[in-house]
């Protein structure tokens, strides 16, 4: 039980989750799912931060993860509000309809 997992395993799972988040942004057409994929990417970056913090024995990585979490909470609030407004204007949130800046 004492034996720990190599840092590279955590980095590998982080890289895989990040790539899957990128794939989600590229293939999905629902802006909500695209947004969730962005959250997945942020989360995988957080995992790499914590793994490096443990590896180097410093706490700065964990503090940075805390800041990333608050920023992503603010980002989600603003992004979802934008999606709600787009829905109100166009009565659909299909990403293909969002092709002009002028509503």
């Amino acid at each position, binding site marked *: 039980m004492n034996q720990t*997992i*190599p840092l590279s395993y*955590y980095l590998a799972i982080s890289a895989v989750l990040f790539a899957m988040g990128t*794939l989600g942004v590229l293939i999905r*057409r629902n802006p909500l799912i695209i947004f969730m*994929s962005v*959250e997945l990417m942020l989360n995988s970056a957080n995992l790499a931060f914590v793994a490096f913090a443990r590896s180097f*024995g410093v706490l700065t990585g964990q503090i940075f993860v805390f800041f990333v979490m608050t920023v992503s909470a603010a980002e989600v609030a*603003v992004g979802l509000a934008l*999606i709600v407004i787009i829905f109100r204007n166009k009565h659909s949130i299909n990403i293909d309809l969002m092709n002009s800046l002028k509503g």
Partner: protein
Amino acid sequence: MNLTLILFIVLAAVAVASAAGLLVSRNTVYAALFLVLNFATVAVFYLLLGAPFIALAQVTIYAGAIMVLFLFVIMLLGSEKLPRGLVLPWQRPMAIVLAAVLLAEAGFLLFQRLRLTATLANPEASVNTTETLRTLGMTLFNQYLLPFEVTSVLLLVAMVGVIVLTKKEKGEQG
């Protein structure tokens, strides 16, 4: 094959499977629930890494607050299922190729260039949770006090911005 490694492999499988579920599920509510499962497994990863504060913040902020907000908007807009519009034929294969290139690049960088084969530092010294939390709080409120306060201003700006954005103009039909 020790217990921690078995736990790690199971968690990694659940995390990757739930991310795949997010990518393929047709219903947006199912996608959100898959993402909650993914966040929960990552929280257990944080516990394995000796970061209990981050693990609990993950559960409350991500799996709690952010995903509830997502589910709320999904159900508010009634966008559980979008009609299939016109689909670019090359979009999906191109996206898969690009994501595979990204993954290969990340793997090359991590394992060839940086030679990250080292194990985690001092594995024998099990992390003292109370001490870690104490140090984390002291660091956060001494060394990183200014960023912490800036974060609170950022949250306030986001809140005001959201209220201004979604407020209906006078006389506007909703």
